[in-house]
């Protein structure tokens, strides 16, 4: 069921929504037997801030032309998006417990626009999302609509060359209603990003590509609201990149900054321990 909080949500309500987002994610991964815990928990505040405060949405009309768009570049964090869509009323709550449970269910490892109301783009192959967002923002300019297109990328994902093709084209076409949010948790499957493929200094690189760059603590909801809400009147401006400094696995102490929890299986003891830590909103 949808969460009984008023939208746009207050900071206290957002913190509670982010807590429930992590619980929903735990429940989905429990149904599946495994999951990308770390990747989901690092972006819970970002997605919650968007869906419960920043984005212009009408859950009764998933295809409303004036809605703000959201593309999950790091598609393996799908449960974080699914929880937001379920708690905003796009999808039924019982889908949580069917996640990946058997062939034919609606919620699968990666977002699918074909099966999931409210999902604006299918995902899963890293490096596609920002380019799709570029196309959405170009179309918005043609149609003279003032919707914003938010794309959430992993900081590992930006190693894909296609992302830099998209960074260049968004700047060229001055897509002021395009926002790239980089979930900068510093870890990927094989190690730290400094080991795997250093991309810092990221802010300098994005500035050099013609983007307006801001950095913030990606778990600080007040800070996120400040940088995410760009208004609706930046039609012809530099696109905005938000480097959200996050902690992979944030909210469950034994997962935080531990590479194993990019994706793994919880033991029953670990499951209890994790849920015990998620009984109250993070400060």
């Amino acid at each position, binding site marked *: 069921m949808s969460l009984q909080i008023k939208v746009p949500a207050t900071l206290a309500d957002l913190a509670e929504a982010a807590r429930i987002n992590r619980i929903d994610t735990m429940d989905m991964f429990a149904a599946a037997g495994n999951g990308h815990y770390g990747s989901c928990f690092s972006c819970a505040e970002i997605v919650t801030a968007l869906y419960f405060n920043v984005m212009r949405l009408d859950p009764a009309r998933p295809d409303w032309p004036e809605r703000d768009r959201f593309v999950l570049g790091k598609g393996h964090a799908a449960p974080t998006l699914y929880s937001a869509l379920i708690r905003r009323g796009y999808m039924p709550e019982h889908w949580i417990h069917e996640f990946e449970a058997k062939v034919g269910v609606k919620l699968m490892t990666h977002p699918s626009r*074909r099966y999931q109301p409210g999902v604006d783009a299918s995902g899963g192959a890293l490096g596609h999302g920002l*380019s*799709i967002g570029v196309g959405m923002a*170009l179309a918005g300019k043609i149609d003279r609509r003032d919707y914003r297109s938010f794309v959430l990328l992993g900081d590992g994902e930006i190693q894909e060359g*296609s992302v830099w093709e998209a960074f260049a*084209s968004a700047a060229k076409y001055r897509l002021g209603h395009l926002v790239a949010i980089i979930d900068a948790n510093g870890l990927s499957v094989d190690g730290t990003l400094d080991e795997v493929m250093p991309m810092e200094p990221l802010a300098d690189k994005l500035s050099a590509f013609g983007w307006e760059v801001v950095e913030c603590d990606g778990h600080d909801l007040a800070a996120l609201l400040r940088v995410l809400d760009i208004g609706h009147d930046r039609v012809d401006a530099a696109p905005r990149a938000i480097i959200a400094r996050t902690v992979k696995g944030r909210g469950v102490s034994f997962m935080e900054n531990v590479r194993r929890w990019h994706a793994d299986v919880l033991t029953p003891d670990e499951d209890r321990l994790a849920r015990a830590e998620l009984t109250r909103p993070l400060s």
Partner: protein
Amino acid sequence: MSTQTAKAGTAKSDTTKSDTTKPRLKTSAMIASIAGADQRTRSAPFGHALVELAKKRPEIVGLTADLGKYTDLHIFAQAYPERFYQMGMAEQVLMAAAGGMAREGCIPFATTYAVFAARRAYDFICLSIAEENLPVKIVCALPGLTTGYGPSHQATEDLAIFRGMPNLTIVDPCDAIDIEQAVPTIADHPGPVYMRLLRGQVPVVLDEYDYRFELGKAKLLRDGGEVLIISSGLMTMRALEAAKRLERDRIGVAVLHSPTIKPLDTETILREAGRGGRLVVVAENHSVIGGLGEAVAGTLLRAGVTPPFRQIALPDAFLDAGALPTLHDRYGISTEQVVAQIKGWL
């Protein structure tokens, strides 16, 4: 976009010409023509057809990866600069951004060379376009062996690559008429389309036949009792020329043009191939692996129709660079080679 001017832009849409004076042994990808010395041609049929269609269809947009001039999209860019997007040499964002625009109601025509679409941008076409069945029209020059530039530019396996992609419709037109009729038809198709493009001075052939392009339909252009050639793309042109020459030797050759490679018109193919008593030859400007020939072979075998069967196609190899007429002779897809191969099989 403003840099795409001059030479190619001066071409007129409705001029046909017969040119017997200029030498045509050119290696260049850009200026090589597949037109024979005595063939009528029409300039940039794709570009002009798209401009014509865009007059009535405001949702049509054009995108390219710095190959507007060599995919005839510069004609559209000049007519509709506000609906033209120059994405630079970046085929991945070209395709995924076209997918992003298509989901917002645009009908994007995205152009590049066939090698770059098939080899470099495959994942982006597959997952940002085809998986959601979005109406992006991918129109690509230099299909098969239509450039002398060597393996980096010769898309000899594009059909093999794209046939495996679900939802994707594949079109291989024969001449300017086919292209002009295909453009509005593929725009109307609700899903993604890959169209192989002949550009520049494109031969005009099919007006001599009672022909109309229909998506998903193969058309019998001429009948004959000894041989049935099933062909697509420029090889239909070669098949028709070969049929005329073989007729002088009292060899009756039917030509079934199948411009839609996927979905294949299995009904017409099975009907014609099942008539019996004829050698069935599939002729294509593509590797012998994974193109029209194997698509037809599979169709026949699954239906239990087993006439004598041969393929005229490019070898499974990285091909040489050089002048196109020489290469077409060497690899068996010139009219002379088509005639010689068929005679050898009879």
